[in-house]
C-alpha cells in the first residue's frame, strides 16, 4: 500500500436496522501507518463501523474503502488486506496456540513452510513464543488478547482492526498491549482501535474519532479535539495565600470577557477562568495581577484531556453538533 495514499477512506456511511440508525453519515480518512482510536459509549456505532470495514455488515448507504478496495463490493480482497480482532477471542477447545495459529494460517492459504516460519515471527512480535504449546482455552484473558493479535498478523495485513484490545486487561497487560500496538504501527501497519480506556488511547493514537448515537462528533488529533471541546481555554492562577482570592477574582473579571466564568477555589488557593484572550493579553492580565500586589505563584493553562473531551461530546444532544475536523 502506497504510504502517500490514505489507508482507510469512509464516506457518508450510514447503517440502519429497521427504524434504528446505528451509524449516520460517517466520513473520515486515515493515512497509512497511523493509529486511529475509535471511541464512544456503548451503542455509539463503533462496532457497526468496524463490521462494515471488514465486510461483515453492509451499509445502508455510503462507501468504505481499504486502500483501493471497496469493503462491500470486494469483501474477498478485504479479507487479505485486513486483520480483524473482534471483542471476543474465538477460542477452540483442546487446541494449542501453535495449532490454533496453524489453522488460521492454513485457512488464509499460507503455504506450509512459510506458515511455520510466519507463526514463529508473529509469536515473537507479540511476545507469545513461550505460549506456543499451551492450550488456548487455558490462557488468561491478557494472553488470549495477545494471541488474538498474533492471529490477525498471520497473513501480514496492511490494516489491523482491533475491537477493544485492552478490555479487561490488568495494568501490566495494558502497558504491554500499548507497547505492542506502538510496535505494530512502527512496522508500518495502519491500526484502528476501539477502546473505553481513554488515557491509553490518547497515548498511542495519532488520531481519534469520537462517536455518539451513531454520529461522528469529533475527529482529529487529541490536541485538535481538545481545542474543539472549547474555543475558550481554561486558565488557572495559583496564589500564595487564599486571602487574596477575592481580589484576584475581581481583577480577572475586570480584564477578561464580560460574563465569563470565574471560579474561586479556596482549598487550592486558585482562581480558574475560561477565556478566549490571546497570549499577549494573558501576559497583560498577569502583569496587572502582580502590579496590584497579588502574589501569583503559578499562572497556566489547564489542559483538556481526552476523557474530558469525550465526556463533553458524550453529553451533547443530537442537535448540538460540534465542528468536525476531517
Amino acid at each position, binding site marked *: 500500500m502506497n504510504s502517500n495514499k490514505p489507508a482507510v477512506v469512509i464516506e457518508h456511511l450510514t447503517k440502519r436496522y429497521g427504524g434504528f440508525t446505528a451509524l449516520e453519515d460517517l466520513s473520515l480518512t486515515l493515512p497509512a501507518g497511523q493509529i486511529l482510536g475509535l471511541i464512544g459509549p456503548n451503542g455509539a456505532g463503533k462496532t457497526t463501523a468496524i*463490521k462494515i470495514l*471488514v*465486510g*461483515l*455488515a*453492509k451499509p445502508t448507504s455510503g462507501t468504505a474503502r481499504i486502500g483501493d478496495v471497496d469493503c*462491500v463490493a470486494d*469483501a*474477498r480482497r478485504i*479479507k*487479505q488486506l*485486513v486483520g*480483524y480482532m*473482534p471483542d*471476543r*477471542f*474465538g*477460542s*477452540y*477447545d*483442546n*487446541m*494449542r496456540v*501453535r*495449532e490454533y495459529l*496453524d*489453522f*488460521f*494460517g*492454513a*485457512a*488464509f*492459504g499460507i*503455504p*506450509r513452510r512459510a*506458515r*511455520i516460519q510466519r507463526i514463529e515471527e508473529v509469536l515473537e512480535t507479540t511476545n507469545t513464543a513461550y505460549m506456543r*504449546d*499451551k*492450550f488456548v482455552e*487455558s490462557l488468561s484473558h491478557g494472553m488470549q488478547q495477545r494471541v488474538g493479535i498474533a*492471529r490477525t498478523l498471520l497473513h501480514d495485513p496492511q490494516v489491523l482492526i482491533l475491537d477493544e484490545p485492552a478490555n479487561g486487561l490488568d495494568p501490566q497487560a495494558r502497558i504491554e498491549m500499548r507497547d505492542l500496538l506502538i510496535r505494530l504501527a512502527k512496522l508500518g501497519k495502519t491500526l484502528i482501535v476501539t477502546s473505553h480506556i481513554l488515557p491509553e488511547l490518547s497515548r498511542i493514537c495519532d488520531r481519534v474519532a469520537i462517536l455518539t448515537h451513531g454520529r461522528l462528533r469529533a475527529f482529529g488529533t487529541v490536541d485538535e479535539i481538545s481545542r474543539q471541546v472549547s474555543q475558550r481555554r481554561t486558565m488557572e492562577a495559583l496564589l500564595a495565600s487564599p486571602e487574596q482570592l477575592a481580589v484576584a477574582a475581581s481583577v480577572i473579571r475586570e480584564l477578561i470577557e464580560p460574563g465569563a466564568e470565574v471560579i474561586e477555589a479556596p482549598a487550592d488557593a486558585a482562581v480558574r477562568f475560561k477565556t478566549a484572550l490571546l497570549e499577549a493579553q494573558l501576559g497583560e492580565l498577569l502583569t496587572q495581577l502582580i502590579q496590584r500586589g497579588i502574589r501569583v505563584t503559578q499562572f497556566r493553562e489547564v489542559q483538556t484531556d481526552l476523557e474530558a473531551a469525550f465526556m463533553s461530546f458524550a453529553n451533547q444532544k443530537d442537535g448540538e453538533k460540534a465542528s468536525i475536523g476531517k
Partner: protein
Amino acid sequence: MANPLVQRELITMLRQRRMLLLQCGIATAFGLLVILRWPTEARMALSGTRSQEVFRLFAYGLLSALLLMLPVFPATSIVRERNSGTLALLLNTPLGSRRIFWGKLLAVMGLAGLILCLSLPSATACYALGGISLQGDLLAVYSLLALTALQYSALGLLVSTYATTTDAAVRWTYGLVLLSSVLSLGPYQFFQGTETILAEVGDWFRCASPFAALMSLSGAGGIGAVGLISTTDVAGRFTVISLILTVAYSLWTISRLNHTIFDQARDAGEISDDQDLGTRLLRRVVFIVDPQRRSRAIGPFVNPVMVKEFRCRRFGRLHWLLRLIAICAMLSLGLTYATVTGTVDWGVETIGGILVLMQVALLVLITPSLAAGLLSAERETGGWPLLQMTPLSVLRIVWGKLLSVILTLLLVLCATLPGYVVMVYIEPGLRLQVERVVICLFATAGFAMLLSAAVGSLFRRTASATAMAYAALLAVCGAPLLVWLGRDAPFGHDTVERALLINPVAAALSVIRSTGFRDYQLIPGNWWFLGIGSVVCLLVLIGQTRRISRPQ
C-alpha cells in the same frame, strides 16, 4: 417458595417462549395420540381391550417424550451456572450444597410435573373409555414416570457437575439415558430362556430400563419376548434400582457442589517432545499416537477446517479414534465368536440383529454429538466471525466440517464390519442380505449426520443444538418403533409398515430378517426416504450457513 433456587430456575425456565411452544406441543401431541386410536365404531367392546391399547400407546409416548425433553434441563443446569460465574456466587451464599442441589432438582421435577400434568386430559380420556383402573394402571404408570423423571434428573445434575461445557453435558446425559433406558434391554433379548449367569445379568439390566417396567405394568410382553413368559417383577425391580440410583446420584452430586468444582489448575500444556527418550518411548507404546506430541502443520491438500474439527474435538484426536475403532472391531468380532461358539440355537439372523442394533445404537449415540454443534459451536464461542474473515468459502467450511464427521463415522462403521465377514463366511447365502444391511447402515450414518447438522444449524447454542438433534434423530429412530410395539393391536400390518418406512433401524433389521421385522418390506422405500431426507437436510444446512455468513 422456601428455596429461592426453585423459584428462579423454574420461573426463568417457564418464562422462555420455547417453553410455551413445548407445552402447547405436548398437549396437542398427546391429544392427537388418543384421538388417533379412539374407537369410532358405533359398538363398544366391554372387555376394555381397545382402551388398554390406547393407554399403552399413550404411556409409551409419554415416557419417550419425558426422556427426550427432560434431560437437557438438569444436564445444563450446573455447568451453565459454573461457566457464567453464578455458581460461585451461589456457593458463597448460606444456601449450602444440599439446598442448591434440592433447589435445582425440584425445579426440574416441577417441569417434569408440568409435562405429566399436560398429559392428564388425554389420560383421563383413556380412563373414561373404561378398561383401565385408576390405581392399577393410571397411578402406577404416573408413579413410574415420576420415578423415571427423578432418576434421570439426578443423573443429569451429576453429569453437569463434571462437564466443562453445556454441549458436553447434554451429550453425556443423553448417551447415558439411551444406554440405561434402551440399550439395557439388549442383553436380555439375546440371553433369555437360557439358564446362564448371563441371562440373569441381562434380566437385571432389563429391569433398569423404564421401558421394560412400563411394558410390565401395561401388561405387554418384552420387546423380543419370543413367546417366553417372564416371572420377574420388572416394575418392582425397576423401583428399587431407580431409587438406589437416585440416592447415589444425589449424594454424589452434593459431594461435588463445593469449591473443588472450581479448583482445577490450568493445563500446563506439557509436550512429549521436550521429555526424555524413555518417557517418549513409553508414551508411544501406551498411546501409539501420542496426544502430547507436537502436531505437524496442516498439509497443503487438506481442508484446514476438517483438521481443526478433529483437533478441537476431545475425542477427535487420533489416539481416541484408534481406541474407538479397536473397541468396535473387538466387540464386533467378539460378539460373533461368542454367539457362534456358545449358542447353537441362534441363527445367523439373530447375530446379525445384534450387530445391526449395536451399530445403529452407536450411530445414534455418537452422530448428534459430532454433527449437531458444527455451526452452533462456532457461533457460541465467537469463532464464526473469525472463519468469515478467512478466504475460505462457505461450501469449503461446511465440507470440512462434514468431512470430519464422515471420516469418523466411516472408521467406526468399517471397524464393525468384520463381524459381517464372519457371518458371510458361516453362511455364504447371506451375502446379498449383508450387502443390503451395509448399505442401510451407511445410509443411516449419512442421514443421521445431515439431520443432526441441519437441526443443529438452526440453533445458536450448542447445548440446544445437540439436544434438538438427539430429539430429532431419536424421534425418527424411536417413534416408529412405538407403532411397531402395537403391531398386532391396535395397529395393523400396513400401518406399521408405513410407519417403519422412515425408520433406518427397522429397515436394517428387516433386511437381516430379524425377529419381528422380517414380515415388513421396507427396502427400497426406506432408502428413498433417507436419500430425500438427506438431500433436504443438506440444503437446509447450506442455506443456514449461507444465511449466517451473509453481511448483516
